[in-house]
Every structure is written in C-alpha cells, then in structure tokens.
C-alpha cells in the first residue's frame, strides 16, 4: 500500500476558523425512553435551537447519521416547522459526528444553505441495541459476514479485541492502566447531573467486573442508552448573532482510514489505529500540535479506544498510551482532561456527539454542573473536582480536540477554539 495518496493539507487552510458551533442540545440519557426516535430527535434539536436562541427560520440545513435505527431529517424538520434548503441522512455510527461537521462546512461553503442542525437520535438500549444483541444476532449469515459472524465475531467489542490484545502484547500495556480510563471518566460523570452512571468506581471494580470478551471487562465497555443529541453549525460571520460564545472550528477529519479497510487486520501494525493517519490532516489544517490542546474528547466506546487514539494522535509516544491514561493527565484538574462529561463509559452512548457538545460547553466556560447558579443561567464555578456533585468546568480551556472512533481502521477528528 506504499502508493497510498496522502491528503493535501496545504489547501484547506482557508476554511480554518471560518465555521463555528453555535448551539448544542440533548435529551435526557435513559434506558427506556418510552418515546420514538422522532420524538427524541425533535426534543434535542429544539433544545439546541433554544440554546442558540434560534427560531425555526434560522435553520435551513439538516444532517443526521444512523444505522437505520433513527428517523430521517424531513420528519423532524416538519415537526419543528423548519423549511430545508438542504438535508442528508447518512449511514454510520461512531466517528460520524466530526465527519458530518466537515460535510456541513462544505455544504454551507458551496452556498447550498446557511445553518445546519446535525442530530443523532437513537434508542440504543430499548430498540436497536448497540451491542448487537436481539434480532441482528440471530439473522442468517452471508456476504462479508461469512468471514466474521460465522465465527462469533460480530459486536464492536469482539471485532476490536484483537487490536486491543495486541497492544498489550506489543507494549506491555496493563489491565490496571486501562481501568484508569473508566475510573477517571466516572469521577467526571459524578460531577455531571445528566450522566446515566454517576457513581465513582475503582480500578478493582473494573478488574473484578465480569469478562465480556477478553481483554474487556464489563466496566471497560460503554453504557447503552436511549437519547438524542444535536449541534448547530454556521459560518463565522453569522456565529455572533446568537446567545453564546461560538466554538470556532479549526480543522476536521472525516472517516479517515487505515489501508485495507475492507479488513484492516491485513495491514499492521494492528495495534496502530486510524488516528496515525488522521493526525496528519488534523494538526496541519489547524496550524497546531498536540501540545496546544487543552482538553480532549477521545471516544470511549471502550477504555482501550480512548488510549489507542490519544497515543496515535501523538499526545504521547507510541506505546506509552497506558502510562498517559493512568498518570492523571486526563483527569479534571490535570494537564489535559478527557471526556469531562463521563463520555460513553458513563454519561450515555450517542455515537460521539455528546463529546463534542461537552467540549463546546467547556470552551464557553458554561458547563452544566451543580455549581451555584447566578440567576442569568450562568454558574459560579468552584473548580473543586474532589467530591461527587462538584464542579466540572475546567480552567482556561481555549482549544479542544475531539477524536471520534468508528473502529480500529476508521476515525474522525476535530479541533475547536474558544470564539
């Protein structure tokens, strides 16, 4: 695959800083919403519109992603009285958020519409289980699945386990180091009133939870929840018309892949993931490096996915991911907090969008924790993260990176700055 053509990162600079996220919103995170994905999606989009202070006439584009487990844009636009100049509903799960933000920028740049609402609505627990259980697990096997499901190799955890295991073999990464990802994200979630799991857990709690697929214990795996999430993108010249400080977008990468993506294990090292390639688009287009990033949102479908991405995007040396995720760097109050909402491991599973929403709120300095409100919807943040129910706002957040994961061979990413 030496003939692999590299992305030309020399021409994208003119879009750096020219687009922004101006509204974010979500539903509650539950297991058993009792509502359709149409109702959940409408609720989340409306919350994002209210967050920005927008009327239906202020939105004219819509994008969504799903695994055929959602409701398409036209139904939700109709419910909310939004007349669309553009919409598209694409197939996909993890890593779609950042990719669709890139598409929204392109669509606005092309003059096709002015402001795009991107949503993900899913009953990931009560309808189409993200773990793949239910009807899909019992369906007949054919096509490409003959080389996978035939062998009981189907769910995300099962299909990624060979990458995770090989990283431990290649670099001596330990179960205890990985467990710290869950420990730290659970601390963050304990300061997040929205989180589905708010209890802090210990390394022993993780290691003593039952095995799902080695090397994954139950607590190495994310939660499955019912929820919808929404972010609203517009151009920088319109970004200051709304209620909050915009989060300006410096660069995006969408579904960047390793070679042989039909079956990426053919091309090693298998303990290297798509971030190894994506970083060479993400950082040059932003004009920044990993050392410039104050906060990360490294997708935590599993404890391992956070570690593998932080490592391959260059936040530490190759092979030192286990050390990075366990030494306190990514804890609130540490050098570079990760997933301050608790992420997919604790807050709820949204295929990545809640991690972007969290970083937008962190950049605004307006995280929705339990600190005392001052009356105008703002809070006096204490920056005391030590006890559950405390502060979740990090100090001096100016630049964030989101690292979205689809699978070891595919990832997306985005860098934002405080507008």
């Amino acid at each position, binding site marked *: 695959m030496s003939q692999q053509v590299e992305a030309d990162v020399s021409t994208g600079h003119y879009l750096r800083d020219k687009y922004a996220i101006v509204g974010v919103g979500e539903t509650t995170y539950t297991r058993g919403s009792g509502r359709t994905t149409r109702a959940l999606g409408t609720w989340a989009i409306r919350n994002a519109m209210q967050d920005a202070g927008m009327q239906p006439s202020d939105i004219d584009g819509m994008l969504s992603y799903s695994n055929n487990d959602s409701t398409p844009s036209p139904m939700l636009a109709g419910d909310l009285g939004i007349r669309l100049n553009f919409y598209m509903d694409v197939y996909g799960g993890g890593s779609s958020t950042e990719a669709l933000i890139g598409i929204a920028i392109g669509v606005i740049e092309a003059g096709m519409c002015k402001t795009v609402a991107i949503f993900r609505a899913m009953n990931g627990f009560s309808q189409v289980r993200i773990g793949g259980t239910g009807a899909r697990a019992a369906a007949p*096997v054919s096509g490409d699945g003959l080389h996978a499901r035939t062998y*009981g190799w*189907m769910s995300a955890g099962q299909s990624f386990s060979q990458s995770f295991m090989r990283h431990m073999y290649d670099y001596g990464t330990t179960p205890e180091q990985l467990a710290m990802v869950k420990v730290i994200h659970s601390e963050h979630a304990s300061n997040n009133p929205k989180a589905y799991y708010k209890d802090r857990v210990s390394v022993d709690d993780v290691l003593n939870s039952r095995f799902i697929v080695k090397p994954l214990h139950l607590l190495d795996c994310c939660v499955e929840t019912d929820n919808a999430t929404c972010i609203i993108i517009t151009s920088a010249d319109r970004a200051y018309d709304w209620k909050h400080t915009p989060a300006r977008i410096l660069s995006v990468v969408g579904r960047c892949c390793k*070679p042989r993506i039909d079956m990426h294990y053919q091309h090693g090292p298998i303990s290297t993931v798509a971030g190894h390639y994506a970083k060479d688009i993400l950082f040059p287009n932003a004009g920044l490096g990993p050392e410039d990033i104050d906060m990360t949102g490294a997708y935590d479908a599993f404890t391992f996915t956070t570690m593998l991405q932080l490592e391959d995007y260059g936040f530490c040396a190759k092979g030192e991911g286990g050390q990075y995720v366990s030494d306190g760097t990514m804890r609130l109050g540490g050098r570079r907090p990760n997933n301050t909402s608790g992420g997919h491991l604790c807050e709820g599973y949204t295929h990545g969008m809640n991690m972007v929403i969290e970083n937008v709120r962190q950049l605004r300095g307006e995280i929705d924790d339990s600190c005392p409100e001052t009356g105008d919807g703002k809070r006096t943040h204490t920056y005391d993260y030590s006890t559950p129910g405390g502060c979740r706002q990090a100090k001096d957040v100016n630049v964030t990176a989101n690292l979205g994961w689809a699978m070891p061979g595919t990832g997306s990413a985005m860098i934002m700055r405080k507008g």
Partner: protein
Amino acid sequence: MSLTGEYLGMPLAVDDLDLENLEYFRACGRGEFRLQRCKNCGLLRYPPGTACPWCTNLEFDWTPVEGKGTVHSYGEVHQAIQPSFRAHTPYQVLLVDLDTQKGQPSPDEAIRVIGNLVTPDGELAPPELVKRCGIGSHVRMILVPVGEGFAIPQWTLDEDAEQPEPWRYPQE
C-alpha cells in the same frame, strides 16, 4: 448456484452473484484451502475480493495455500452475543498469520485468517484447551463441513510444531 449451510444452528448462505466467496467456500467444501493469486503481481490475498489490493488487477488464479500459521492476536469471548455461541463460552477468535507470504509485500503485512480455536475433530475448543492457546501459538487449519459442498476454515493447535509458551491476557 448459491451455497447454503448451517453452523452451530446458524444459517449460512453464499449468494449466487458472490462469485469470489462461492469459489472460496466451494474449495473448502472439497477439503482445499485456496486463495486468489493475482495474475499480474503474484500476491495472494484474503478475504476473497474483486481486485488486487496491491496492483488493482482483476485477473487471478485460485491457488492452494498451506493452512499453517501463528496466532497474531486473539479475543476470548466470555459473554456471547449470538445465540449459537452461548453454549460454547469461553471461545476464542484467532487472527492467524499464515506462514505463506508473511511480511510481504511490507514487513507489517501478512495474510491474517480469522477462525475459532477448535479441537482436532473440529469442535469448538473446551476451556482447558482455550487456556493453552495465545499469541505465538502455532496452529493448523481444519476445514469444518457446514453443508453440501460447503466448509469453513477453523484453527487447531499444531501437534507437530514445537509450541512456545503462548502470550495470554494476564488475568485468567
């Protein structure tokens, strides 16, 4: 003509337009492990595909390949998702580097063939056998019949090879 079969109670089907998979699994059904060899660059590929990933050539021959290799990595399923596997946990999903074409065309590449660890009789391995297999284990292929003229590749520990102490996940 399409192929149909059943494995552990799971219906398997190869569509009649899926020519590459049809030929692959038919060869398995005859007791032969065959892979596509590109007529231009001579490289073997897996899984079956419609063009050569190294030179884009569409022409190939089905070439017999020795079913021997080394475990590159594995997952060990303790909670099955598919109903067919629930009675068989823990089961291993092995990613095996074939001895043939290992390290070609670049050092990090190999033909990595997926399969479960099975007994020499082709049954999914019992827990005591699973504990003997890990990264570095030498394995040989067993073709397990799943229907008329239809078999699937599986892996068993190679009794004739000198086995190293395999690397296994530290917590048993």
